[in-house]
């Protein structure tokens, strides 16, 4: 491979632009007295059957009385002190131990106030009367006919393992524990802590009050994802497969290949479905990436991988189109500042058939024209602010040519005019196939300006483009939820329609992916205590320990849960059989249209009852 190194750029520095993408809001919460919360909550209630069974009992007027009963979840280091405080329970009062350090209690408000004063009590929260739940999602997929109705299928995921590879997991959350309080996690691998493995016993110790909390979820994503797939019943919430067991990987986001291999290795002969609500766009998008081919090899009877399609539909990270000989187009690329303050960097890969030939050149913001070298070569350029690498090589796995443009800034202090206005010129010299496609490596690094070549199609990411997995799109099942700021809604989306962010198919080689669509907007599931997402007041209900967020990340564990139910019914189902069943049983409606497959919904909306009936 030839290599030429030249210094050709000297861009002036004039001013620094503003941050282009907002980061999550992290707002210091006001200290709110739990007693005042209890009282405020009780005042809102009217006497009803629901209140008597799952919420407050005896709140018959607009004023709360010290003898009113309130349902609480209590975390306490010292059980004896707690038991001492309620040694002589009043009428209707009861305390049940859920697990080490966790208690369910129905107490008079006056007793609750005494409990709050015990030093060993770390946290007390009221249980919810309402159900800000997965309920709209579960009716959407046919798991329940009414939001609060019974499950329509007998399968619960029993004897099936759900693998989740994600940001971490808050195992203090009751949704990871069964009705006896026992942890439902059979193993955890922490790739961010030297690949340390934990057994259930290790996790019991580590997640006891005062423990080290192995696999802790600082972000909040993994906790939410896992409990959508298989969370235990909790305040009206319940995952799709609440009796499945978990194999969890807190990933380093690089070694996901090792993570999936670890999960299937631990599962042994037991049926297992792995959820990957992760992805990227560095690759051929034709199922030939090494990790995608690895998945093909790892899956088989009773071993399934489910992957999120991606959220990049409208992120302008993809260009693609058909060319005739001598046709040329120029697209503009703007590099984005990084939210974490690191130096901006962007990689664009362009792919076309080896029978074709495209001249590709990068024109700098100051107008310098840099040609991508001939096949098998790489050129490097540098200035005081940015290093550029241009290369062209053959990609044997799919008889393609891969052109790569790397832009690596040397500092985060880059003026806007050096970030914006990069131009990529594509000129077709030979066209047996005539198509070229390009992607920025992932969302948040760079974006193409609007241009006829910018497509919303083919925005499905890797490894969802792999042949071995089930790729999942997202549609809207509700647009209202409850959070710390109260009742929230989003009128920009329409219930039933595809989520506006949901990445679309097909793959670059024309295969029909995603396979299926599931509810991914807005889904309420477990909130990881103290996580980044817990600071998002519009979405987090910190007292209720639930979070409402959206993404194909949330749609994917719905499908993972359904696959777990299918594997409970038949442990040896193969990926192709699952795919065929999901396809044949998929629901079509006014939003999906009648087409057998479309880029947004795949083969349609998932229907759990239909899928299980077909197993």
């Amino acid at each position: 491979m030839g290599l030429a190194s030249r210094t050709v750029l000297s861009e002036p520095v004039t001013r620094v632009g503003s941050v282009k993408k907002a980061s999550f809001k992290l707002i210091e919460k006001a200290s709110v007295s739990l007693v005042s919360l209890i009282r405020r909550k009780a005042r809102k209630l009217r006497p009803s059957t629901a209140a008597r069974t799952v919420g407050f009992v005896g709140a018959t007027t607009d004023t709360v009385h010290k003898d009113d009963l309130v349902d609480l979840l209590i975390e306490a280091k010292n059980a004896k002190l707690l038991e001492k405080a309620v040694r002589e329970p009043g009428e209707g009062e009861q305390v049940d131990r859920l697990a080490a350090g966790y208690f369910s209690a129905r107490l008079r408000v006056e007793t609750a106030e005494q409990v709050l004063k015990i030093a060993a009590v770390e946290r007390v929260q009221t249980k919810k009367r309402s159900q800000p739940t997965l309920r709209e999602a579960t009716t959407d997929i046919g798991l329940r006919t009414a939001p609060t109705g019974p499950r329509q299928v007998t399968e619960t995921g029993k004897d099936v393992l759900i693998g989740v590879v994600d940001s971490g997991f808050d195992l203090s959350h009751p949704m990871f524990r069964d009705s006896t309080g026992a942890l439902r996690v059979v193993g955890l691998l922490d790739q961010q802590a030297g690949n340390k493995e934990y057994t259930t016993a290790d996790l019991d110790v580590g997640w006891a009050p005062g423990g080290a909390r192995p696999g802790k979820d600082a972000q909040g994503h993994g906790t939410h994802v896992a409990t959508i797939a298989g969370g235990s019943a909790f305040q009206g919430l319940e995952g799709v497969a609440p009796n499945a067991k978990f194999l969890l990987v807190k990933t380093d986001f690089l070694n996901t290949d090792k993570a999936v291999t670890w999960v299937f290795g631990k599962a042994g002969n037991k049926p297992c479905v792995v959820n990957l609500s992760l992805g990227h766009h560095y690759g051929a998008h034709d199922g030939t990436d090494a990790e995608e081919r690895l998945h093909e090899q790892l899956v088989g009877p009773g071993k399934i991988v489910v992957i999120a399609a991606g959220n990049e539909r409208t992120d302008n990270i993809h260009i693609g189109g058909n060319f005739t000989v001598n046709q040329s187009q120029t697209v503009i690329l703007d590099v984005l500042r990084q939210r974490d303050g690191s130096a901006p960097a962007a990689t664009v890969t362009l792919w076309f058939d080896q029978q074709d030939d495209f001249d590709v050149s990068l024109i700098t913001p100051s107008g310098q024209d840099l040609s991508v070298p001939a096949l098998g070569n790489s050129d490097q350029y540098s200035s005081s602010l940015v290093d550029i690498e241009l290369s062209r090589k053959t990609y044997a796995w799919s008889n393609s040519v891969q052109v790569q443009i790397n832009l690596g800034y040397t500092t985060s202090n880059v003026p806007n005019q050096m970030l914006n206005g990069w131009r990529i010129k594509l000129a077709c010299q030979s066209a047996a196939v005539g198509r070229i496609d390009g992607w920025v490596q992932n969302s948040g690094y760079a974006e193409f300006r609007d241009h006829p070549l910018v497509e919303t199609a083919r925005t499905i990411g890797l490894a969802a483009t792999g042949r071995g997995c089930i790729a999942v799109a997202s549609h809207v099942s509700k647009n209202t939820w409850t959070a710390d700021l109260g009742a929230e809604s989003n009128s920009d989306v329409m219930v039933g329609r595809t989520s506006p962010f949901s990445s679309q198919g097909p793959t670059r080689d024309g295969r029909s992916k995603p396979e299926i669509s599931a509810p991914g907007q807005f889904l309420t599931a477990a909130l990881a205590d103290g996580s980044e997402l817990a600071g998002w007041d519009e979405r987090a209900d910190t007292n209720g320990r639930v979070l409402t967020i959206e993404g194909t990340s949330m749609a994917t564990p719905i499908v993972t849960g359904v696959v777990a139910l299918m594997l409970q019914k038949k442990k040896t189902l193969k990926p192709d059989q699952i795919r065929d069943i999901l396809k044949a049983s998929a629901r079509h409606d006014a939003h999906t249209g009648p087409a057998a497959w479309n880029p947004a919904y795949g083969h349609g909306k998932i229907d759990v009852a239909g899928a299980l009936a077909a197993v």
Partner: protein
Amino acid sequence: VPVPVIVEPRPGHTDEEVVTRLKAQSAREVSVLSPGFISAELPPSQFESMEAIAVIQPKVRKQTR
């Protein structure tokens, strides 16, 4: 600096041969994930020396969806 890679033996070469060569090239964390797929951490400067017997693909950082 070693980077995480997936290494696939070229036709005519075995996993064992590639593992042995990787270790000789000071690769770290070498493990066979599944036949034909080896995970390792390898300095980019060593890629070229492996090219004759294996295809090397650096692992890509993923984002949550």
